[in-house]
């Protein structure tokens, strides 16, 4: 007889990041996964195909990533926490309906185990090349939330964080990992159920006759009725008013777009998370996210040992971008160094936020992780 594993596998495990992500989703209460096989995210689908039947959830392998994205939005509208996982090419296919999730305000989690692009690129090799696509990949004006894990443990933790943010702010949230984090195996600690903090979407507090699908509360987020709850939900990807009725005019459009953006912008202090190391007296700060953060920390420690006042700002939330913090650092440092596994994407945000107050130096790397020595070398050169 097969041993049925519990939903929350409390204890110590040796997982790769993809499997840790799947376990994080299940621990978050995710009971619907739709996906399409793609390297290097396939292990998430494989793990979910084994785990969903164990926890009375649904695993469905869709015909493509367009369908996967839509299926998770539909499932979430029926009240079940839902996730999909993909990599570059699939991420591109998901973008139109990622926008539908933004417009209809549907909680869900989209995981991108990044690889090299454009096009088929490097299917089996790492990259951080979809960071700007994460921000701007769908058409129109909107704000997103994207988290960047740097270890299998964080794949577990940040997937839970992503579900909580998606439920709280009613939008699909992105977990922007990469092939190294997805495939590396490390210790992952799964806490006890009571120690996992979960958030569920606000439900309407009024009778169905009085309920308006898109009437926001003070936090700019409207309560959400699920299909089958008796609220006669009306929702559309068209620009709509508070009732959810199509409203084809400039005034309604401005009102809606501003609110969709405001619910992220005005809640930035609640959403943004980061990690600072050796930052207080730092004259050189390395701004990093995802897997290069691990080389960065070592490089910064080496710099300190060499008498250089270096520090690290690690962005846990890459979007919304923590521009106030970067501006503040720009005012009191000689240089900001930005290592990325791409041709320089987030460094543009750093430059924009620094507003010319300090030097901004990218360390561009392709299809492999920076070594600590490579980052240390740049810190040392700048410190001269």
């Amino acid at each position, binding site marked *: 007889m097969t041993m049925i594993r519990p939903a929350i596998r409390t204890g110590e495990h040796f997982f790769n990041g993809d499997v840790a992500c799947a376990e994080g989703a299940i621990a978050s209460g995710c009971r619907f996964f739709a996906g399409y096989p793609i390297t290097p995210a396939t292990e998430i689908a494989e793990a979910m195909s084994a785990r969903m*039947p164990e926890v009375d959830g*649904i695993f469905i392998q869709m015909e493509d990533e367009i*369908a996967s*994205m839509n299926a998770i939005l539909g499932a979430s509208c029926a009240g079940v926490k839902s996730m999909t996982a993909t990599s570059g090419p699939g991420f591109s296919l998901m973008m139109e309906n990622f926008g539908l999730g933004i417009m209809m305000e549907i909680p869900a989690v989209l995981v991108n185990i990044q690889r090299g692009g454009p096009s088929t690129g490097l299917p089996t090799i790492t990259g951080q090349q979809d960071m700007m696509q994460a921000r701007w990949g769908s058409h129109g004006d909107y704000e997103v939330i994207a988290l960047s894990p740097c270890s299998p443990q964080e794949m577990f933790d940040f997937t839970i964080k992503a579900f909580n943010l998606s439920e709280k702010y009613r939008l699909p949230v992105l977990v922007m990992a990469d092939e190294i984090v997805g495939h590396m195996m490390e210790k992952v600690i799964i806490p006890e159920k009571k120690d996992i903090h979960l958030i569920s979407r606000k439900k309407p507090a009024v009778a169905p006759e009085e309920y308006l699908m898109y009437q926001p509360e003070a936090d700019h987020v409207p309560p959400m009725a699920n299909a089958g709850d008796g609220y006669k939900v009306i929702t559309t990807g068209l620009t709509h008013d508070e009732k959810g009725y199509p409203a084809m005019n400039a005034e309604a459009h401005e009102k809606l777009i501003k609110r969709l953006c405001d619910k992220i912008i005005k809640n930035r202090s609640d959403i943004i998370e980061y990690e600072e190391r050796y930052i207080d007296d730092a004259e050189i700060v390395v701004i990093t996210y995802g897997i290069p953060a691990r080389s960065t920390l070592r490089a910064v420690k080496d710099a300190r040992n060499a008498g250089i006042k270096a520090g690290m700002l690690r962005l846990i939330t890459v979007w919304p971008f923590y521009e106030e913090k970067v501006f503040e650092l720009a005012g009191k440092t000689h240089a900001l160094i930005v290592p990325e596994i791409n041709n320089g994407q987030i460094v543009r945000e750093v430059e924009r936020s620094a507003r010319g107050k300090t030097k901004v130096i990218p360390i561009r790397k392709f299809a492999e992780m920076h070594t600590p020595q490579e980052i240390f070398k740049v810190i040392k050169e700048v410190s001269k």
Partner: protein
Amino acid sequence: MIHSEVHPMDSLIRKDRMPHIWCSGCGLGTNFTCYLEALKKSGIPLDKCVIVSGIGCAGRAPGYTNIDSYHTTHGRAIPFATGLKLANPELSVTIFSGDGDLFAIGGNHFIHAARRNIDINIICINNFNYGMTGGQFGSTTPLGSKTTTSPYGNYEHPFNLVYVAAASGAVYVARWTTIHVRRLASSIEEALLKKGFTFIEIISPCPTNFGRRNKLGEGLDELKYYRNHSIIKHFIDPKEADLTLNGEIIVGKFVDIDKPTFLDNQPDLSQKQDNKVTKT
């Protein structure tokens, strides 16, 4: 007041959204009413009924329906509806959308949902062209027909939708026209109550675009054409039910079979722990 009477379908429509956007002579109003009538007669609790669409003229129907309604993106109603149904099997999920939406941009989703036997109902309004964008040819436009993107006559072979549906695995396949109101309404009711992936094609007039460019006359003339040229042939091989521009229209029920759905075939793991679906 002249319009003081209560319309029998009033409880099922969002009256404050009237007037609708559909053109004079369009078949959609009649088709939509047939759907509402079927919904009412089916006896399914309305709170458990959901209508989903993609984009196009037909795609506006959910916005007029006074039940849970989802107007999604172009071509994507089927995967969205798949998520709704699988996440809450208590829901009765119907897609009301057009031929371009379901079979051109959304064709891949159609064949796979039918293959999987997802327990959803598809009502496809086939007006042989993209009405919303002004009348371009699509995957159902008969050979030789004039549209704004086939000014010399369409040179592509069209899909025979009932044949596609049957070949893809639908458990219920029927075709009617807008003039077959009673047969259509009872066919939709039958599909709503049928377990598995059901498909109903409605041949419907688009006098503003397709009809005008192909000299088919007013909406009423198209309905007369349907009356005079439709032949009911239940359970014939849908392969034989091809449509042409000025030919006969074979209608009827072609497939009505039973087989396990996607949910019926889910693995049943014994000794389940307390891991029940968490509704959020």
